[in-house]
């Protein structure tokens, strides 16, 4: 069979050739004939293969069978999907095939028998696929809690719908198990060719399917119960909020006053877990080295030791000692402080300086600045002295300038 002769290959190639159109039609739900990507040839070819069907005069949609196949492959969640919708119908076909196969065998119609066996096997595979797919889909819905719908009311309705679908599948499975099909195939020699497929595909998988379905139904019912609990819980929360607003001083009861601890209070306090690397453990050494290598270097403060100088002897070999002489303003301040201590009356700093000609080289302004600086230092040596600035009247109230023309220095009475 050449590639071109095979209809399946031809169909798949057509889909591949025009995959852009197929994808657009699947995702968008429709495709317009006027779209840039939609070539008339592509549309025509896909229509010939029944992959596209007309939606309106100038638009097309994907054929339902192909869209359904893609949904199944991609496990796309659908709203109110007809999960397991034809399980019961498919199961109902099986006894018909058995009857016909037995008749054909008894009447010696070998060719017809082969046809019925093939038909039966296909029906069995189809049924097994349907049940497996339906259970997988229901499980996905149960696990994701109907993620495709947003509101709780929608979730509630979807949940109730799928519980109904699960029950229908459950009835079909029960029918397969208790309907006597297996006894019939097993007890009728003419139906022997039907046995392997039925046993392998259906009979031996039935317990697993029923268990899975039970599990899914339980999840769906528990979720439905929780959804139904949500509304009263909201009402209670609002009522309690109102109670809190009306009782702004409300304090929750002291645990010691309760006769019995409420269940929620039993929650264990968090344990503060902390582990340290065992540096002696050889098995973890490599990992620790790796971690250590990646650690950024910690800043190391470099302390520079002060350079110790050496005393250089003079030309004559003797060590010279330089003694610093006090500055004139320091001498003047020292003398002033000494005199203030002795005298009782306030002294004018300027008048005092003028009385001491040895300090005449010291400008008046600098002298006053030195006295004020000494006052600002508030040292112990001047603790008993009060400095009072004599200021010129300000040139302007907001100028901020303070012009001092003298400082009065007096002894603070003890």
């Amino acid at each position, binding site marked *: 069979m050449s590639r071109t002769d095979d209809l399946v290959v031809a169909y798949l190639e057509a889909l591949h050739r025009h995959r852009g159109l197929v994808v657009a039609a699947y995702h968008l739900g429709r495709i317009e004939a006027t779209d840039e990507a939609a070539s008339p040839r592509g549309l025509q070819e896909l229509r010939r293969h029944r992959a596209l069907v007309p939606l309106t005069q100038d638009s097309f949609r994907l054929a339902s069978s192909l869209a359904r196949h893609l949904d199944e492959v991609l496990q796309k969640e659908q709203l109110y999907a007809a999960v397991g919708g034809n399980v019961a119908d498919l199961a109902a076909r099986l006894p018909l095939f058995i009857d016909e196969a037995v008749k054909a065998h008894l009447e010696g119609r070998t060719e017809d028998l082969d046809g019925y066996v093939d038909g039966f096997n296909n029906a069995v595979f189809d049924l097994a696929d349907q049940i497996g797919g339906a259970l997988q889909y229901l499980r996905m819905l149960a696990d994701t809690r109907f993620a495709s719908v947003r509101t709780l009311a929608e979730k509630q309705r979807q949940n109730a719908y799928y519980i109904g679908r699960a029950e229908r599948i459950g009835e079909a499975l029960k029918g397969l198990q208790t309907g006597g099909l297996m006894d019939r195939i097993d007890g009728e020699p003419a139906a022997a060719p039907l046995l392997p497929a039925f046993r392998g595909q259906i009979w031996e998988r039935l317990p697993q399917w029923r268990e899975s379905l039970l599990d899914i139904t339980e999840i769906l019912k528990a979720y439905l119960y*929780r959804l139904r609990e949500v509304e009263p819980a*909201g*009402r209670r*929360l609002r009522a309690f*909020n109102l109670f809190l607003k009306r009782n702004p001083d409300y304090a929750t009861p002291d*645990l010691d006053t309760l006769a019995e601890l*409420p269940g929620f209070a*039993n929650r264990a306090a*968090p344990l503060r*877990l902390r582990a340290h690397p065992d540096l002696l453990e050889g098995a973890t050494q490599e990992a620790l080295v790796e971690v250590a290598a990646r650690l950024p270097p910690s800043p190391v403060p470099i302390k520079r030791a002060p350079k110790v100088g050496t005393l250089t002897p003079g030309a004559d070999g003797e060590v010279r000692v330089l003694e610093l002489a006090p500055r004139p303003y320091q001498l003047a301040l020292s003398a002033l402080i000494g005199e203030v201590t002795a005298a009782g009356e306030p002294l004018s700093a300027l008048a005092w300086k003028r009385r001491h000609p040895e300090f005449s080289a010291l400008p008046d302004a600098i002298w006053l600045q030195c006295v004020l600086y000494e006052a600002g230092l508030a040292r112990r040596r001047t603790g008993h002295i009060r400095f009072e600035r004599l200021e010129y009247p300000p040139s302007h109230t907001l100028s901020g300038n303070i012009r001092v023309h003298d400082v009065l220095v007096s002894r603070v009475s003890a």
Partner: protein
Amino acid sequence: MFKQTLTLLLAGEFICPIRYPDAWRFLEDDTERAEAEAFLARLGRRLARTRQGGAWFAAYQDIGSDERRAIREGFAEIKHNLRLLVNFLVFVMQAQRQDRFLAPGGLIETNRLMAAIDENPNLRVELQSIAALGKGSGADGTLRGTLERLLKRLLDDGYLILANPEREIYEVTGKIEYLQEVVDFLMAHESVKEELDEEDDGAGRQESLL
């Protein structure tokens, strides 16, 4: 998964399918759960579940004086946060115009919530009064900042996860069921009648509008 799940439980986390899906799946398995229970039992703890079944947590097996002290501290924490949490959750329900409790998996969209607050002066006032229960308004002093700070508080406390950071969509976790249990207990203890209060609540809101 044993190590991660048990570490979370011992650290006081609530294991729910929204916040810790892997650990949740681990505990949903009967065999794995039995192992976890056996391990916790050796530490004087047991595996507990919220009444609605939406979250697992570690509880004390026996209650001695140490456990009682820890329980008292836990209860004090609830006491401290209760008013803010209840007020804010009811506020979100009102702003989203839903009567239902914010169940696990429920979504809170910051932008939608903010739009509802902008439209309604009552909600603006309410938000400010809730903010006063916490640490005041947001850093920038705007309503949006306040709302974001409150949402972050719930996020930090484990009641929400940030499901979509770009669109600022939060998802309610299973821990909310624990809060619900606390509220139910306190309502029973204080004999708060939900039906009667519902009517009064409506009347109260009418008055506030006037």
